[in-house]
């Protein structure tokens, strides 16, 4: 299946917001699985949105979904 991943600048390795479409050969993926695929440390992830809905790291992800990773909120 193909999914789109967006990573906030504060989490991305090169320090710039990152968006990419990735292809996965197997089904049953979750945001946690996909984070491992793109080398994202889940400990630094505070919020996950799947198709703009706040979701858990273990939510089911389907073909065509958009998964967004944001950092923990600090400050304010």
């Amino acid at each position, binding site marked *: 299946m193909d999914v789109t991943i967006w990573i*906030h*600048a*504060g989490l991305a390795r090169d*320090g*710039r*917001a990152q968006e990419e479409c990735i292809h996965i050969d197997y089904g049953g993926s979750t945001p946690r699985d996909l984070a491992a695929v793109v080398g994202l440390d889940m400990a630094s992830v*505070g*919020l996950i*949105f799947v198709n*703009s809905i*706040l979701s858990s790291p273990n939510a089911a992800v389907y073909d065509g979904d958009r998964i*967004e990773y*944001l*950092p*923990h*909120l*600090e*400050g*304010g």
Partner: protein
Amino acid sequence: MSRLIRIDRKEQTAAFEPLTTDIVRLGGRALTSHLLYREVDPGCDPLGAGNKLILAPGVLSGTTAPCSGRISVGAKSPLTGGIKESNAGGTAARAMARLGIKALIIEDLPVNRDLQILYICKDGIAFHPAGELAGKGTYDTMAALRERFGTKCAILCIGPAGEQTMEIASIAINTVEGYPSRHCGRGGLGAVMGSKGLKAIIIDDNGADKEIHNLQPADSATYAAACKEWAKNLIETKKLLTRFGTSFLVDVVNKLGAIPTRNYSHGQFDQVKGLSCETLEATVNSRGGRMGHPCMPGCVIRCSNIYHDERGEYLTSGLEYETIALMGSNLDIDDYDFVATMDRMCDDFGVDTMEVGAGIGVAMEAGLLPFGDKEGALALLRSLGEGTPKGRALGRGAAHFGEGLGCRRIPTAKGQALAAYDPRVFKGTGVTYATSPMGGDHTAGNMLAGRGKWRGIEDTKQTEGQIEASVDVQLMTMVLDMLGLCIFTGPVPETMGWLSRILTAAYGETVTPDDLLAVGRTILEIEVAFNARAGIGMAANRLPEFFYTEPLGPNGTVFDVDRERLELNPWM
């Protein structure tokens, strides 16, 4: 040895007082609120002889504790009519602590209206005339005072708004570089200072002897080691704040659907890219500004920034999320140069950026000017600096200004503008807005996403558990405010653990997290009691009607936390 300084503006006298036992271990907000409750009639006129302006560094200020340089300023607020504390970074807390000044109490009113400067150093206290500074903005004032008193002094001053006792007037404090960009912004405390006839307060700690410092740890080696370890932890865990400052919240709060947009009519801003943290970082770096700037000595988080204009010249410092959102998305504007210019003008006039952003938002909703009108917004703010009737109306705060314009949707609580987290999505922060004795103030207990898990909070939009979690965070915030710590160190249980270790070393006896929270609760109860006597009872624990009835897009949620409980007694 620590002591109080009491300034009588009517008699033009200054006196040193020993500490009474009830205040020896208090500092910051805990001390300002305690002294206000002890000495001020809650029914007094905020700008009259009965009110007192109280300045207090935190308990840990002036020591090696990281991020401990906040100064609290307290008084009865001319904006809310209730008790108020507003704290800021800058250099003043450290200077006061190094001079052994636990608190500075300024009382009564001067006989004549000539502005003065209050000068405090290790050798004594003096009053100087300040007539030549009348009407000047904080930038010119600060520059003149640095030339006159030296660049090593800490300076607090007011702008024209404070002189005109506007309800949203702030008190500016200099950074190490001398910029008047750190402000005790909330609640109109600059107006109280103006009513006392003080244009500036100089704290000159040159030559201060270490023996007189406010805090000398009982176990200095353990204290230093604990502070060092905590500092390392903060540096490691707050990297995002160091890099982007609070601007990184723009993208995140927008994604959560809680960024105020067009006067809180929507929770997402379609032009958010223009206000993103990456845009700010790129703009600042390309013009020779600076990200990762410390707003006070000893800060290891360094979330502030220095913003240059298109010519590469200094424009303003410390663009924060609240200002960005309330001057940006709230006004339907996506231009950082506009936001920075507004911030500079607010700092120079000496007013709260949040009240101005919210005030212009309601003016746009009322049709005084259209949403997105940058020139109109700049002109309106300029009129405040000029003291025109319209400008003075804006200077009364968003609540008064909006009511005068016939606006029905005014985002305030207890007369104070809300911060840039819509309470229909950030329901825990909504509880804080509604219940805090400080009025609509996120710095009294911000329930950011991720906080409150210990109360079962998994989503800022859930209803259950928000009251308990907000109260917890308000108590932990009180502890930070008492100690002079930046709230970005975190009003969370982990921080209470660090502070337990540090204070145990400081006092030479065990201080538990529960001990700290117990002090926090006592002070909070004092503040609630002060407000009750000022006529602001539990029934005032509410938000404007539209937050309960008008669903906020795109989530479609309203503020639906148990209203009856908020208005009876949320603290039980």
